[in-house]
């Protein structure tokens, strides 16, 4: 009975709140609020953590196949229990804090890292509405919340008193802030076409998936987003061959498990966002219900991420910054201007853009996309760019004029 009631009223904040409010006196409103929040929190955390565990398995199996290996297949059916084994192994390890580390910040960083990732999930619309109901500023909320991650990465790197962690954190701040800008501009374009800021309204406005309407925005968004979650080819934050492990070099035990969890959660979030913004979310055809469509689309995007991770090498630091400022930023601005002009010409009323308008925009935008990408990358291309001439470090000749060196050279000459 209970479940049916909750389902009918919608499994979101308003629904659960209304359900409990019915048989509680008005003076106990705070209790109702508390219960609702707790239920939502438990559901979201469990759903997200479980799907993350599944994703780690999925990713490792798939990466294995991409690299002609097998991936974990020993523990449980098809190796499905491998995430649990990993978790037990991580949690039973000693949780060390380096001497001289800034203990409160060191401890806080994993939590600050994890919390935004969980919060973002509360607004992603799985079917009609999200867990938090229909938030009408969902786009701004997502962009704002995800930028907190940068702070957490810097906290972790700075507090652990380790130069590699610090390098990783510095790179992270530089990179994440740069990529936030093109990402934000593409989101503005999406909001412009959808004429709304609510995530579920964006889905409702997508009579044609926006991947067709704005391919340029899609490309920029997916590139910037995979940089935001620092995966290959943008994983220089934690590039294991240069920095040990980057900002989480000093972490171990449960804290490391939290950091790792968030890192694996990021692809899910980004995939869900891409699905919502560009692949028309839960909307599909036939008897298959909406949430299933959503999961299928998310999985396709995740597959793409794993494929890219398995194939492409990591970019250098200057290449990454160059791509953000010289490549993605102009592309996203071009996209925004073209879309803005089109929306201005079509001048949508209350009901937003009609399907015919969207089809016309699709035609124009594909042309613009191909020309813009070709132009930008020919400007940026290998033949045009010059390698910077290496500057000899002043430290390299530090001892050239000191007495010791002179003595030694004198000796050699005397002989």
């Amino acid at each position, binding site marked *: 009975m209970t479940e049916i009631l909750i389902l009918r009223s919608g499994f979101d904040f308003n629904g659960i709140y209304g359900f409990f409010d019915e048989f509680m006196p008005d003076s106990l409103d705070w209790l109702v609020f508390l219960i609702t929040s707790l239920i939502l929190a438990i559901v979201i955390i469990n759903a997200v953590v479980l799907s993350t565990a599944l994703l780690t398995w999925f990713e490792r199996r798939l990466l294995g*196949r*991409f*690299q*002609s*290996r097998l991936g974990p297949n020993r523990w449980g059916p098809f190796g499905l229990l491998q995430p649990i084994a990993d978790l037990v192994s991580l949690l039973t390890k000693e949780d060390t804090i380096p001497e001289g580390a800034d203990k409160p910040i060191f401890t806080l960083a994993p939590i600050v890292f994890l919390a935004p990732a969980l919060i973002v999930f509360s607004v992603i619309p799985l079917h009609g509405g999200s867990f938090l109901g229909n938030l009408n500023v969902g786009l701004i909320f997502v962009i704002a919340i995800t930028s907190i991650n940068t702070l957490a990465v810097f906290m972790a790197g700075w507090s652990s008193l380790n130069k590699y962690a610090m390098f990783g954190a510095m790179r992270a701040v530089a990179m994440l802030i740069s990529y936030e800008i093109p990402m934000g501009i593409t989101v503005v374009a999406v909001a412009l076409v959808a004429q709304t800021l609510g995530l579920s309204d964006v889905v409702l406005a997508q009579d044609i998936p926006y991947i067709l309407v704005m391919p340029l925005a899609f490309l920029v968004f997916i590139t910037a987003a995979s940089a935001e979650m620092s995966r290959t080819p943008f994983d220089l934050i934690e590039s294991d061959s240069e920095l040990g492990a980057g900002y989480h070099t000093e972490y171990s035990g449960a804290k490391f498990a939290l950091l790792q969890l968030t890192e694996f959660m990021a692809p899910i979030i980004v995939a869900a966002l891409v699905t919502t913004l560009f692949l028309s979310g839960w909307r599909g055809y036939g008897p298959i219900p909406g949430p299933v469509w959503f999961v299928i689309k998310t999985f396709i995007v995740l597959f793409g991420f794993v494929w*890219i991770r398995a194939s492409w090498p990591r970019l250098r630091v200057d290449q990454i910054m160059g791509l953000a400022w010289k490549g993605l930023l102009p592309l996203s601005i071009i996209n925004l201007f073209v879309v803005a002009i089109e929306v201005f010409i079509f001048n949508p009323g209350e009901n937003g853009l009609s399907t015919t308008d969207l089809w016309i925009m699709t035609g124009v935008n594909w042309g613009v996309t191909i020309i813009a990408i070709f132009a930008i*990358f020919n400007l940026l*291309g*290998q033949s045009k760019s010059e390698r910077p001439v290496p500057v000899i470090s002043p430290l390299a000749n530090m001892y050239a004029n000191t007495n010791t060196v002179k003595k030694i050279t004198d000796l050699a000459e005397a002989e």
Partner: protein
Amino acid sequence: MYGLGLVKGLMVTAKNLVLPSRMMTVQYPNRKVGLLGLSKATGVPLPKLLLKDPITSVKSLLGMAEVKESLPQHPRFRGEEFSWYEQRCTGCASCAKYCPLGIIEIVTSESGDQMQEGQKYHLDKFDIDIGRCMFCGLCVEACPYDALHMGSGFEEGTYRRQDLVIDKRKLVSAKKTPSTWFRPQLASKKYDPHKGKNVKWDGAGRHEKPSLEQQQEKWAKR
């Protein structure tokens, strides 16, 4: 064109994903099998397998069934357990003298056997410390009576170093599947130790065992 290399890279990994022939992992010591693989590995036809062992069939559908997997190996592979025939060994200790590491320890006493052909000693001790052995095979080359052969196995992991010393008792009771390395008489018979057939002491020598008449003839000449 700029960016074409990226697509090429994606295609390479996509081929890895789609073509099963590109998989190079050998699962050892156990291989996970599906239902078809199980019936192929055990040699039982599929319907019979389903009837006879439903639990294992369901397990194999879940990817939890395993079959033993042995790695393909050459018969001349120089393995760890030496094959040694007490009946052939005279206690001459050539092997101990030739070992560059000096890890074969032989203690003999007079047995009063086969005095006419030279003494055959009684072996009180025959220890090989394979923990230090480098499997050069010089001891096998040195043995004049083909009593010592290289072994064929390699799964000799133990928890203590002392356990790696194989003594006379272990040598006598070990499986006699000698490697055909430096033993052309075994190689010419197309003997493959990995098929698991034991070689008896009289089949391991360089010459055929003389028949009774031949032996008597020989004795008469003396």
